[in-house]
Every structure is written in structure tokens, then in C-alpha cells.
């Protein structure tokens, strides 16, 4: 489908026209050649109210055109209140689906591309919304973690055992593409199933288990790279992406053989807008400064890594031994003064906005993130090596944004993640329904000996007036705000970071592992005050572990409806002070009724009413 009417404005002097964003980017690159450090060029790409399809990442990089570093660029929509859509989805005609014999669902066979491969994706959109991937019922894994000896001999361990009936059902349908997901405290593993051997069984506590073999790479990774400090016993696990477990309104996609299975919700033939994502990145910017992305909707991306590899992720969705992925609708690297505002990021299989390497002066304002499978926003490189310039992030302000249903595809991803940062404001955001932590910042576990400023983990961070609802819905050991790491030598006692006036509530208690305001891994120099935390196992927590004990954290004047726990968190000798907290084991309603201050904190928290209305317009009306 042809796009139309993109304007490229050059300081109102000269206008160019393009039909596609790709064309617009090419014109920008050409125009940029006139720019120099002494003579910056101001350009504006104005998109029509239209749906622009992007099947390969569109890149503006100063590596390719160095003069782009001297262009002030705005990418925006034509009019106020109107957002242009940039989508990475391709469509499938419902008529091309064929019924699977003897089954209530349908399938579509993709043709191979010119290199003989099928498209790879992990999301399927019906009428512009992700539908769930088919999965089995959950089981609680009953076996212990591997011993050191078993790990050493792991090459011979090709898989593991699953309940016999579950394995049997899995075997009833094509297995190719089937994944097995493990939820292990703060980690998440996904391995590909190769086969099921119903003759190889094991008994435990009166229950029979059959052997499920993983693909070799996956089996090796599962046995070698899974966290050896975390027991697998008692963890939730299930099969995923197998047609054997299709239910109405779900899909599975055998990305090895290019077969998409779809079980329409109404039981009828597939119809409506049926789309699959084709790209991992929509827009990529590198080395630019004074960049503004405004009033756009980004949708329809995927992440293909898991189609080809086992996925063993640790904290903050980093691959164990493999670093981070850069799958994001908008990927920015090494940018200065970048603003993303009034945009919508929805139905995305990777991250929403991701910024890697050195970024300075980031503003994220008035954006909506919904149904994002990884993090809504991810900023920085996950390393403690501040000394290397590319790992530094300065002056980030994230204000008045809305995030909902985040990271259910890759649950180790926090809704908002930022690594080492100097100057960070996270205020007046609403974050709802997230698989793991709502906000995670910092990247360091050890005690540090540097003076404030000579290196940075988290400095001058200010997280306030945010509303968190239903965090930690899948994993454990994370918080509404999870602040990680020491921020300078212990002899510096000033509390230069603060979290205050945040309101967090979750539906019901979890059995364990949901923290509230969580200062982990030798975290230091935090002020945590005047917050509300409803239904967290550990509402206020400053790490007491002797190997990573926190220092100089003051936690006071907070309102919580669960007790402080566990023992050992009170540590005046480390200047970790809990004082004047209001602990009252009431329900949320009762707490609100009893404490005027709780009501006031709640009322002042979260994004603006205007943004909530925009959410309502987009999704409910």
C-alpha cells in the first residue's frame, strides 16, 4: 500500500515531499550534508494521518552520514490530537487459512522467502491486538536443581521430565516450535522441545513423568547456564506455542516450518485484520542530537531471538552470558537531547523504546505503552563499567507516561529499566499490570570504594508521584521500584537519591517475592519516604545481606498494610534507618478510609487525567 504526503520541512524555507518514511529518511540524509557543527540544520518530518508500514528498520545514523549529528530533527504527525501509525505488521488474508482436519482450529502455511526461510515471529494480531499464544496448564516443577557433577556432565542430559499426561498431550500435535517456559524466582528460561519419549518415565510422589527432550543447544543451555544458585524445584513451568494446547482465541506458530495455527475466539473461520509482525525495529537513530519523536503510534514488532535460540534470561531481561537484545520499536543509540512525547507504543513483541550506549538529555513525556512483551522503556547498557564512556547516561526525565500490561512475553523485563545513570527523574507515571518490577534502576551488586562522582551507579535519581498497580505478577524478587547497587563509598552519607509520594497497590497478596520499595544489592544513599505500599510481601526493604549490605538508606513516613520483614533489615550501624512508618494491616479500602494522607498520596500520584482520557479513548471507547 502506498503511503502518501510526508512533508519534510527545512526551517520553513524549503519543503520536500516523500511518499514513504524510507524516502523521507533518504531526503533527510541528503539534506543533512549541508549541516556542520557551526551551521546546524533544522528539519521536520511531518507524517500524514496514515498507517505507514515498515518491513525493515529505518535508520538515521551518524555512522553512515556524519552530518546527521548536526541536524535538529523532529518526526511528528500532521495535526494535534492525531497520531500517525508506524506498523511493522504484514497481513494475512483470512481466506488463506485452512481448517486442520479433526481439530477446531485453522492453519496457514507461509511460503518460504528467497533464502528458503519462513518468517519468524512470536506474536499474532487480530484486529490490531495481540492474542495469547497457546499454552498448557501450569505445573510446579518437582525436581531439584542440578548438582555440580550433573552440570559438568550436562552434555548427556538432553531434557527433563514433565507430567505424563501433559507430555502425552503435547505429543498429539506437531512439536516443532514448541517452547517450554520456566519461571525461576527472578529468572525466566525458554527452551525448545525436540521430542517426547513416553517410554522414558520417572515416578515421584506417586506421579508419573515422561521425558521431554530439548533441542541440543537448548538442553545444553538449560543445564549449564541456568542459575546454579536457584533451585528449580517448586517453580512454575508450562509448554507454550504448541497446537496441542490451542484454545479459543489463541494461536501458535511453528516458526521452524512456517505454519501458523489459529483458533478463532468464536469458533468460526478466521476473519478480521489478521497480522503478524515482520520487524524487530521500526525506527533506529544513532549519533543524533536534538531529536524529537512526537505524536506517533508504533505497533507490530517482534523479537526473533527465541525462534532461533534458547532464551535464558536473568535480571532485567539480559540473556545469561549473552547481554541484551536491541529489539525495540524505536531504538536510539548515542543520542543527545532526544525527546519522545505523545507517542503510543502498543502490540510490540520486543521493547517499546530502547536507548543504548551513551545518552544525554532524554525526555519521555506523555506516552502510552500497552501490550509490550519486553520492557516499555529500556535505557542504558547493563554493565557496572561506568568508566567506559559508552555506558554513561545523563539527565533522563520520564514524566507523565502510562504503561500497561508490560513484559508478559519476556517476564524478566521490568516495565521501565535504566542502568547506570546520573540525573534521573521518574515522576507522575502510571504503571499497571507488569510481570516483574515496575521500575528497575542501577546495575551493580557489590560494595564500592569510589568517591561520589568518580564513578556512577545511580546518582541524583528522583522517583516520585508515580502510581503502580499490580506489579510482580509473574516473577519473584523484584519491586514496584527496584533500586540496585551501591552508589559511592560508605563514608559519604548524603542521601542524593529519593523515592517519595509513590502509590503502589496490587490485587491480593502473592505467596512470596513481591517487594515494594526495594533497595537491593548494597544500594546506598536513598531517601524513601511518604510512599504507600499495598499488598507487598516486603513493603520496604533495604538489603541486609552481609555480602551486599546496603548503607545510608532512610525509610520513613511510609504507609504500608503488611509488616516489615524479614528480620535484619533494621541496621542503624549502617545508617539504614526505618522510622515513623505507618504499619497497619488493613485492606486497601480500609487504609484509605483511615488515613487522610494515604488518600492524598493516591490522589497526587500517577499520570495526568488528560493522558488517562487518551488511554480510554484508545482502548475503551
Amino acid at each position: 500500500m502506498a503511503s502518501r504526503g510526508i512533508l519534510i520541512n527545512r526551517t520553513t524555507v524549503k519543503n520536500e515531499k516523500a511518499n514513504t518514511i524510507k524516502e523521507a529518511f533518504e531526503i533527510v540524509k541528503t539534506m543533512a550534508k549541508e549541516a556542520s557543527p557551526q551551521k546546524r540544520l533544522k528539519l521536520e518530518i511531518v507524517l500524514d494521518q496514515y498507517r505507514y508500514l515498515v518491513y525493515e528498520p529505518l535508520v538515521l545514523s551518524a555512522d553512515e552520514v556524519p552530518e546527521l549529528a548536526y541536524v535538529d530533527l523532529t518526526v511528528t504527525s500532521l495535526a494535534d490530537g492525531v497520531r500517525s501509525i508506524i506498523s511493522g505488521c504484514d497481513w494475512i488474508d483470512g481466506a488463506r487459512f485452512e481448517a486442520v482436519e479433526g481439530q477446531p482450529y485453522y492453519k496457514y502455511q507461509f511460503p518460504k522467502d528467497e533464502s528458503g526461510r519462513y518468517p519468524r515471529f512470536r506474536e499474532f494480531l487480530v484486529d490490531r491486538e495481540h492474542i495469547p499464544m497457546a499454552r498448557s496448564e501450569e505445573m510446579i516443577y518437582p525436581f531439584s536443581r542440578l548438582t555440580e557433577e550433573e552440570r559438568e556432565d550436562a552434555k548427556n542430559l538432553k531434557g527433563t521430565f514433565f507430567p505424563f499426561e501433559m507430555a502425552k498431550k503435547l505429543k498429539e500435535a506437531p512439536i516443532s516450535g514448541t517452547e517450554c517456559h520456566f519461571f525461576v524466582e527472578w529468572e525466566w528460561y525458554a527452551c525448545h522441545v525436540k521430542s517426547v519419549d513416553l517410554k522414558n518415565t520417572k515416578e515421584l510422589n506417586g506421579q508419573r513423568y515422561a521425558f521431554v527432550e530439548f533441542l541440543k543447544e537448548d538442553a545444553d543451555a538449560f543445564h549449564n547456564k541456568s542459575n546454579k544458585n536457584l533451585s528449580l524445584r517448586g517453580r512454575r513451568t508450562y509448554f507454550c506455542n504448541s497446537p496441542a494446547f490451542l484454545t479459543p482465541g489463541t494461536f501458535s506458530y511453528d516458526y521452524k516450518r512456517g505454519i501458523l495455527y489459529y483458533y478463532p475466539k468464536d469458533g468460526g473461520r478466521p476473519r478480521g485484520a489478521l497480522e503478524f509482525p515482520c520487524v524487530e525495529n521500526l525506527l533506529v537513530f544513532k549519533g543524533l542530537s536534538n531529536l524529537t519523536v512526537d505524536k506517533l503510534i508504533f505497533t507490530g514488532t517482534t523479537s526473533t531471538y527465541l525462534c532461533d535460540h534458547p532464551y535464558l534470561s536473568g535480571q532485567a531481561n539480559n540473556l545469561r552470558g549473552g547481554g541484551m537484545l536491541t529489539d525495540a520499536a524505536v531504538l536510539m543509540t548515542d543520542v543527545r537531547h532526544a525527546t519522545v512525547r505523545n507517542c503510543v507504543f502498543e502490540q510490540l513483541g520486543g521493547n517499546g523504546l530502547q536507548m543504548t550506549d551513551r545518552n544525554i538529555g532524554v525526555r519521555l513525556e506523555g506516552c502510552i505503552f500497552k501490550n509490550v512483551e519486553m520492557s516499555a522503556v529500556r535505557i542504558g547498557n547493563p554493565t557496572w563499567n561506568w568508566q567506559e564512556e559508552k555506558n554513561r547516561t545523563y539527565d533522563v526525565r520520564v514524566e507523565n507516561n502510562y504503561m500497561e500490561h508490560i513484559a508478559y512475553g519476556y517476564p524478566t523485563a521490568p516495565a521501565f529499566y535504566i542502568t547506570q545513570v546520573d540525573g534521573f527523574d521518574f515522576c507522575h507515571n502510571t504503571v499497571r499490570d507488569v510481570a516483574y518490577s515496575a521500575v528497575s534502576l542501577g546495575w551493580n551488586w557489590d560494595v564500592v570504594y569510589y568517591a561520589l562522582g568518580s564513578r556512577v551507579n545511580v546518582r541524583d535519581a528522583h522517583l516520585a508521584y508515580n502510581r503502580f498497580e499490580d506489579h510482580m505478577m509473574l516473577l519473584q524478587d523484584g519491586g514496584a521500584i527496584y533500586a540496585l547497587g551501591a552508589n559511592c563509598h560508605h563514608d559519604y552519607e548524603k542521601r542524593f537519591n529519593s523515592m517519595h509520594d509513590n502509590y503502589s497497590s496490587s490485587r491480593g497478596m502473592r505467596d512470596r517475592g513481591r517487594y515494594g520499595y526495594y533497595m537491593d544489592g548494597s544500594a546506598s544513599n536513598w531517601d524513601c519516604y511518604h510512599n504507600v505500599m499495598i499488598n507487598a510481601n516486603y513493603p520496604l526493604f533495604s538489603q541486609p545481606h552481609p555480602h551486599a549490605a546496603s548503607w545510608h538508606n532512610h525509610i520513613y513516613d511510609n504507609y504500608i498494610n503488611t509488616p516489615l520483614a524479614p528480620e535484619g533489615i533494621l541496621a542503624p550501624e549502617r545508617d539504614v534507618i526505618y522510622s515513623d512508618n505507618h504499619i497497619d494491616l488493613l485492606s486497601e479500602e480500609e487504609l484509605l478510609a483511615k488515613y487522610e494522607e494515604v488518600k492524598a498520596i493516591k490522589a497526587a500520584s500517577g499520570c495526568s487525567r488528560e493522558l488517562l482520557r487518551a488511554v480510554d479513548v484508545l482502548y475503551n471507547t
Partner: protein
Amino acid sequence: MAIKINRSAKSEQFAAVSLKDTFAEICRLAKDMARPDNRLALGVVLNDEVYQVYEPLTLSVDEVPELAYVDLTITARGDGVCSTVTGARTIPGKAFAKVEGKPYYKYQFAPDENGAYPKFRELMVNKEYIPVAHGERMHYQFASPPEEKAATGEEVRGAYLPIELVRELASEPISGAECRYHHCCTWRMFRIKGVDLNDTRELNGETFARVEFLEEDQYCFLNKTKARLPLRGSPFYFFNSPAFLTPGTFTYDYMGGTLYYYPLRESDLTLPIEYPVAEQLFVFKGLSNLTVEKLRFMGTTCRYACDYPYMGGQASRVFDRNHKGDKDCFRIEKSAIFATAMNRFTVKNCVFEQLGGNGIFMPDNNVAVRIRDNIFQNVGMTAVTVGNFSADWLDPKNRLFDIRIENNYFEHICCDYAILSAITVGTVDGLSICHNTIKETGYMAMHIGWTWTTVPYALGEKVNIRDAEIAYNYIENYMMIAEDGGAIYVLGANCNHDNPRRFNSMHDNYATAGTMRIWGRYAYYMDATSTNWDCRHNVTINANHPVFSQPCPWACSWHNHMHENYCNTPVRAKVPAPDRDVMVYNNVIDTLPEDEFLAKYEEARKIRAAAGCSEVLLDAVRALRENIPHAGAAFVFPS
């Protein structure tokens, strides 16, 4: 005279005879035992002695890399200050000979093997520097030589000064005599070659005779006087000429090796008379976890002005004759303690006095410096200098982190080089200057930061001054000589304008300046694009500009708030600039004398009462005065 070296791990002890041996032993132990994964803890304990040091004692990782892995404490044996490290040498009083027909004495040094005489600029009688003889103060009446040359097309032949004073100068040997002057924020010391009483100029009925400087000094006087700073009206005086000797003063002709001394009383010749030999006492480079405590440092000099014309500018900069711009200047680093590239360096409970150079000088890349509970008095240059004066933060050597200068006493600082400040700190991230008492400074009490231009960088990306707290200091009689400076002078932009947070603060300081001056004495002075300062709840007495945030359009300040200050002089109308978030509000301005002002405002009294160093330290200062200071005198310092 044994010095103990304690090695903590096994409580081993080693003995050394002299400080030089001690430092050599430390190097040997470091080489043998110190490793990155096995740091060596050493303690040097000095006896109740006077240790004479005539050449710098050095511990440097350039020479012994393993010193980087030594935790070292250098201290005195007992409580209080009882060990003295001096760079001075004694002259027997009886070696002085009376100058015929004069009330003063002279001592002729013997030349060394190169035919040179010792060079120094101070004389210590009974452990205290005495003043150098100088002529009366006059004001230069003519335009600066470059200006005159531009106007008349003729080369000026020297400085024209009142003929009677010039005649008096010519009445005694001129060798070694100097002419000193300052105009605005510069300071000049030129060596005199001769006078020509026949080369005169008339102005307003007064006769002026020509003074000619040594060749290089003459070149600088004629060519390096800044045209934009008016020389006319600048205070001049002759210095170091026996023609102006008065009781209790001295002069020293460092070219001819003749020392002239006019004792207050004849009996003073029986007191210890010493001249400084060393320019530096201790030199440290690249060490971490070093503590120096309970030592008295005294008896140093700085020979630079004996050999070269001295042209000083703001922030200890010195310009040579070829100077073209800020990048060409340098600083004189002579100091009792010179330390660079240090990590966790503490100087506490020490006395720095009778020093001709700097007290503590720490140029490059210092982290976690603690200067606490010390006394600095009679220091010719700066008492404490930390950092470089460069806006290039990206060069690691220009970075300072976590510098704390707390509870110190400073008196009579930088009066010999009156363009220096008692405390100078370069570009710094994390600074605390609190609870210090600073009295009598030639120029400013403190000077922090270094840049004039606006900056585009985000906070943290680069640093000029960040997270600085300057509070509870008592400052009295600052800016005694030079102009255009402040009690607290901070310079430069600290991040781009879109960050309004005031992350630097000066509060609860008390600055009093004695009598009013015509101009140029500021109190709390945020100069040249200064940003992000909170200046609140201070008192200022008798400053021309009590609070000042630079409004100059080329270098205007941003995001500075000045509030709740108590001033007895008005704030300049151009200072408030709400468009730049420079706010002046809720200040109490009442043009009363200090005593009436204090009587009227209780809050000002409270600020004064809470300002300055501790009573314990003031007691130590008093004890130091009342007892003739010598080795073995124990002054109890705060622990």
C-alpha cells in the same frame, strides 16, 4: 632522634634516624611487601623533635609503584602537635654586624661553590616571620605603558613615581629592591635595576622620577599591563630596600647575599634567627590512604620572585613574559606539603605557619581529601589549593572528587602574594568547606571553580562545581589588598540551563570586612555564568556587593537564588534576573554598622555564633600564640 615505623599487620617496628631515612625505609618496605591484593599498613611516629628538611622528602609512585598499595600514617608520638618539620636554617645573632651610621644590622652570606647566594624572601625571628621593609603606599598617576605608547607613539622608559620616595629608595643599595603593585585582580612584583632622578615628569604640581626595572621586569612592565585594567590609581610601594627599614623589619638582597635586620630591641639578636632554605617539605604522588597528623610545618620560601618578574592573576596563575593567554600561565607549586594524584588523603591536627609558599598544594586528580582541624597562619601564598584551573574536565588530571575542608583556622594568608586566596579549589564534584575561620587574606577567602562561558553539557557529563556546600564559615577582613573578589567566590557555569536544580549551596556563613572600601569587595560572589547556587541565610558586613550573581550579558549567571541573607549594604539593582531564574528575595538589608546590625537582628547573631571553627581549635590557636612555639609544646586538638 629515632623515628618509629610501625607495620600494623604484625606490629613490627623499624627504626630510622632521620626523616629522610624514614622515607627511604617506607619505600623499601613498600617494594618488599605491598601488593594490590595485600596492602601494607605503615605508621610513622615522630618524636618530640624539630626535624630539619632542606630538600623535599618524596614518596612517589613514579619512583616506587608499590607505594600505591601502602596505607600510611605520619604522626607525632604524643597528643597534640609536638613534632616540627622545618625548612629553616639558623643564623647566629652574633654573626650580624651593625651597619655604620644606621640602627640596623647586616649579615653577609658566603657564596656557594657556584658563586651564588642563598635565595629566600622571609626571615624568622623567634619562630615567627617578620615583615619585609617597604616604602609608603602611593598611587600610580599615569596610564599603563602600552596605553601611553598607543597614545603618544613613544616608548615609556619605566615607572614614574613620586620623586621623594624614589630619592629615599636611591639612598641605600638598590640590589634586591622591588616595586609591588596591584590593579584590580592582578598582582605585580618587579625587581628594580635603578632610578634616574633626572628623568622626571610633572603632573598636578608634583614631580615623578623614573624607576627602571631589570631587563625582563622592565619588558613586562612596559608590555604586559592589561589595557582594560586601569593602572592609573593603582597602589604601588617599594619593597625589600634597606632604605625603608623600620624596627622589627628586614630586607634581603638575594643578589648580593646581604641580609639587613633592624631588631625591635638589641636583645632580639639573641633570639633564634632563621631563614628558609626549603621550598617544599613533603612531596607525595599517587598514594592512597595517607594521613598526616599532629605535625607543625614551617620555614619554607618561594624563590620564584627572586629570579623572575612576578605577574599574578586570579586563581594563583602566574604569567611569564611570553604569556599570551590563559593557557600559557602556570602556578607556583611550592608548598609545605605537595600532594598529587592522591586517593583518600587526610591532613588533620597540623599547624602550617611561617611559610613563604603555599601550605598544602594538591594539583592533579585528587579523590577524597580531608583537611580538618588544622591551623594555617602567616602563609605567603595559599593555605590550601586543591585542583587545577582548567575547564577541561574530560582530562582526568583536572578532576576532583569528594573534597572536604572542615574546621580549620586560617589567619594572615596570601598577604605576600595578594592575588591568591586562602582556599582555592578547581573543578570539583563533591565539596564541603564548612566551619572554617578565615581572617586576614590579601585577596579572597576562597575561590572555587574555573570557567567563564556558558556550557552546553548536562549535569554530570562534565563538571565545574557540583554538590558543593560552603557553610558555617566565619570570614573576617578578606580582600585586604586586591580588588574584584569576594569572601566566597565561585566561578562558572555548572551545567546547561535546562537544569534548574540548585545543587550547590552557600549558607550560614558570616563575612565581615572591617571598614568599607571604595569598590571591589564582594561577599558572596557568583561570577561569570555561575549556575545552580543557593545562597541563603548568610551575613555580610561592609561589602560593596553583599550578594552578587553576574549579570554581564557575555557571561550571565542562571538559576541562582539569594535569599534570607542579612546585609548591611544594598544589593546591586542589576543582580535580580527572574528571566534567568536569578532570584533575590527575603533578604534583610539594613545599612547599619556591624554592632548595631547585630544588635538589631537576632538571626544574624545566631549565624555569627554558629559560624567558624570549633572552640577547641580556637583554644589551640590561643595556646599557640601564648606559648612561644617550639618543639615539644603540646596543643590539644579535637580528636
